[in-house]
């Protein structure tokens, strides 16, 4: 069996990278992402951030929930609370990165080669990566995944720009509709991902508890909403499990 080269020659890597970008644009996630980020760009404009800041935000953070939290609370909340909320919302990256990076590792892949795949990992990239990477030989995977990530991220950045500009130019009713897209998208994706009572209940309670906590004007209301509503939902889950356990 011929020995595998430690690293493909640069022009081959670039070809594979482009393949990744093509796969990104053809993915269903591309359209969902662009739509999502158009709404987010509009939000960023209405709240008062600059065009460049929005693009940088997508480039650096590359996580829609964290970005929406940042955009909607950075102006008004204490920075500590924002950081806490962002930290909490991004926990899922740990198992995602830990799950997909080994798929790309092989002798010859240096630690720093994995830094870009690590950063571009987001739900859409990860899902497509988990689906497509096992189908190709190991030496193509890093470049392909990078292309996938860069492709999807570029769509998001462009979408954000489009939304930003649209918000300034659309008549008020349409601009309002564009802004409303973000809470709609969050609601839909949370509803669709909610497989258990815990997920659905956490969301519903969060919707109810949120305004109540905010009205108290004690500050850090996002954090308290998450803790109170989330713990309540978790308690219900535990009670259900306990009752189920007692039956056997």
């Amino acid at each position, binding site marked *: 069996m011929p020995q595998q080269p430690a690293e493909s020659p640069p022009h081959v890597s670039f070809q594979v990278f482009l393949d990744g970008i093509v796969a990104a644009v053809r993915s269903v996630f591309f359209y969902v992402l662009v739509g999502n980020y158009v709404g987010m760009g509009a939000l960023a404009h209405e709240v008062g*951030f*600059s065009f460049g*800041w929005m693009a*940088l*935000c997508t480039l*650096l*953070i590359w*996580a829609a929930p*964290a*970005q929406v939290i*940042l955009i909607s609370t*950075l*102006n008004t909340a*204490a*920075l*500590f609370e*924002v*950081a*806490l909320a*962002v*930290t909490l919302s*991004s*926990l*899922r*990256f*740990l*198992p*995602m*990165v*830990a799950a997909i*990076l*080994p798929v790309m*590792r092989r002798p010859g892949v240096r*630690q720093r080669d*994995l*830094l870009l795949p*690590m*950063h571009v*990992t987001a739900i859409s990239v990860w899902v497509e990566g988990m689906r497509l990477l096992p189908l190709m030989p190991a030496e193509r995977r890093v470049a392909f995944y990078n292309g996938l990530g860069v492709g999807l991220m570029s769509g998001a950045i462009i979408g954000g720009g489009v939304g930003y500009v649209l918000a300034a130019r659309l008549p008020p009713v349409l601009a309002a509709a564009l802004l409303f897209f973000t809470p709609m998208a969050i609601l839909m994706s949370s509803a669709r991902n909610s497989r258990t009572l815990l997920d659905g209940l956490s969301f519903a309670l969060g919707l109810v508890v949120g305004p109540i906590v905010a009205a108290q004007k004690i*500050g850090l209301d996002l954090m308290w909403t998450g803790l109170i509503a989330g713990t309540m939902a978790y308690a219900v889950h535990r009670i259900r499990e306990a009752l189920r356990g007692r039956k056997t």
Partner: protein
Amino acid sequence: MSLTLHDLGPVLALILFGFLPNEVWRLVGLMLVRGLDEKSQVIVWVRAVATAMLAGVLAQLLLSTSGPLAGIPVSVRIGAAVLGFAAFVIARRSVFVGVLTGEAAVLLGTYWFGT
């Protein structure tokens, strides 16, 4: 401490309070996959950060014009620190000698030059 956006500027806030808390999870994922090797790297970095913080505190104490050392002129403080460190090196890296010398120097200096 209730730092707001206006104190810090949007881009800095983005990096410190948006990018870092978010990226931290990706980084830890990467570390986990790497294994024991990276754990020591993480420890090395943590030590560097802690050391830098301590150095920052030291610099503040040496240079600040208010606080517990306010009565001691800055030049006396810095001079005493330098003398103490020199003594430490000369006495074959003895912490005891260094501290004693520094203390003596700062007391004498305050007596001669201070308020």
